[in-house]
């Protein structure tokens, strides 16, 4: 195909988008919807994941020391934690003395009378440790549990293994569900779009017939439809992105306010910017792929007749 023919046919494809307004709008509309569905699933997943990561990061290993622990044992434990911190396994840690513990207990009871007869001597000292990687809990706890001065099981070392497992399990489910939903949405999108394109090609089958009639090569016939598909893909991606950007911005602002109002301040929607680029890319790639490939497939059916 000569450059000039290519240019001619491409221009043809672009102008077809304008000429067949009805069909172009139909196609763009469906591609936009398909992309929005994809984007919706993606954004929900990203947000849930980000919130869950935050929750995981806040999990702590609690180590309760014997009430009558000696300084040597305490320092050994401290040294162990410091060593692991140096190795990068511990993100941060905190020591709670007997006095701290008593004050906290006091604060948690509304009626101080209830603590009558209790003294700080009866409280246990403790370390609370945030791990860099919560999954490595066992690896960190194993040597610790052998050390002297720590309360016996089951109270000595408290690691919310169960909570972690819940979160991890939930994240796994979420990943699967997201992938499945994305898959379904993609299938639906391709279905809607191939329908639309098939119909537009069907409505223009006479045109294809006439092109063959005057001796147009198959590649000549495909070219305008292909360009048309790509253009529609690009326009759809742009529209979908605009809608997503605006829509998410609005949802982000409103929902974060509402969540804060209702006291769920720990849950927040992530801002759009960091994920925006990914979504732009996704939209344009999928939009153009769907448009281009969709039209090629649809035209082929009519070329074989």
């Amino acid at each position, binding site marked *: 195909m000569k450059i000039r023919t290519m240019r001619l046919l491409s221009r043809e494809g672009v102008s077809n988008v304008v000429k067949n307004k009805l069909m172009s709008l139909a196609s763009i509309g469906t591609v936009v919807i398909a992309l929005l569905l994809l984007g919706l699933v993606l954004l929900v997943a990203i947000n849930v994941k980000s919130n869950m990561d935050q929750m995981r990061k806040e999990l702590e290993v609690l180590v309760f020391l014997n009430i009558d622990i000696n300084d040597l044992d305490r320092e050994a434990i401290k040294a162990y934690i410091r060593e692991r911190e140096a190795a990068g396994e511990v993100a941060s840690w905190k020591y709670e003395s007997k006095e701290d513990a008593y004050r906290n207990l006091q604060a948690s009871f509304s009626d101080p009378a209830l603590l009558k007869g209790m003294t700080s001597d009866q409280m246990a000292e403790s370390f609370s440790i945030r791990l860099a990687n919560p999954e490595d809990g066992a690896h960190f706890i194993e040597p610790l549990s052998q050390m002297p001065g720590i309360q016996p099981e089951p109270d000595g070392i408290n690691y919310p293994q169960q909570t972690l497992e819940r979160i991890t399990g939930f994240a796994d489910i979420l990943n699967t569900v997201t992938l499945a939903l994305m898959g379904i949405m993609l299938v639906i999108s391709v279905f809607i779009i191939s329908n639309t394109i098939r119909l537009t090609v069907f409505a223009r089958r006479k*045109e294809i017939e006439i092109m063959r*009639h*005057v*001796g*147009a*090569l*198959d590649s000549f016939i495909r070219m305008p439809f292909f360009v048309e598909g790509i253009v529609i893909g690009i326009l759809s991606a742009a529209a979908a992105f605009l809608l997503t950007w605006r829509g998410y911005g609005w949802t982000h602002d409103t929902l974060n306010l509402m969540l804060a109002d209702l006291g769920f301040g720990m849950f927040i929607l992530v801002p759009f910017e960091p994920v925006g680029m990914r979504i732009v890319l996704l939209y344009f790639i999928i939009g153009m792929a769907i448009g281009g490939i969709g039209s090629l497939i649809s035209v082929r059916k009519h070329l074989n007749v």
Partner: protein
Amino acid sequence: MIRFIDVTKVYANGVVGLAGANLHVGKGEFAFIVGESGSGKSTLLKLITREETPNTGEVQVNGYNVHAMGRWEVPLLRRSLGMVFQDFRLLPNRTAYENVAFAMQMVESLPREIRRQVPLALGLVGLGKKARSYPSQLSGGEQQRVVLARALVNNPAVLIADEPTGNLDPKTSWEIMNLLDEVNQRGTTVLVATHEKNIVDAMKKRVISLERGTIISDAEKGRYEHED
């Protein structure tokens, strides 16, 4: 140029379009194809352009077996043929000019050539003034002439015309037939299916008569009604 060897075309519903046809049209010849409605004229022409394929026998164009061609060769065959069919087949969203230019663009002619040839072709069929009209804005006869202009514009080796004057008044019909004769003089092989008895009789060209799918006569300087 064009050769039919024992060609039979039976349509899917059992109707016989053409039965055991043998035919040779040499390079530069001019032949009329005549016969009653439904006698197989269009079938014969469609076998040449490969819009239909024969059940048995062989159709050759320029020595090539049309039936045996690959899909991708069909456009190349069509490019060497100028075609005018009964159902006019113009692109509805292009003007007369653009429709004719389109045929040149498809064979990748130079834009300069296109700008020169298209008005010439439209002028030849008497439609110089209708270049900017869309098919829906043209009368039946005018549409037919645009199709003819499109068929001529690439100077095809063979011109296949199926009732090119079906919607034309006698005067215009004569003009068109004379035009085809002229094109033929310049070396193009011309095959015309027609019902114009007056013209066929007057032009004294080769006449191939069909009756119910069979070639019943083939006469140099023949007449519309064949003499047995």
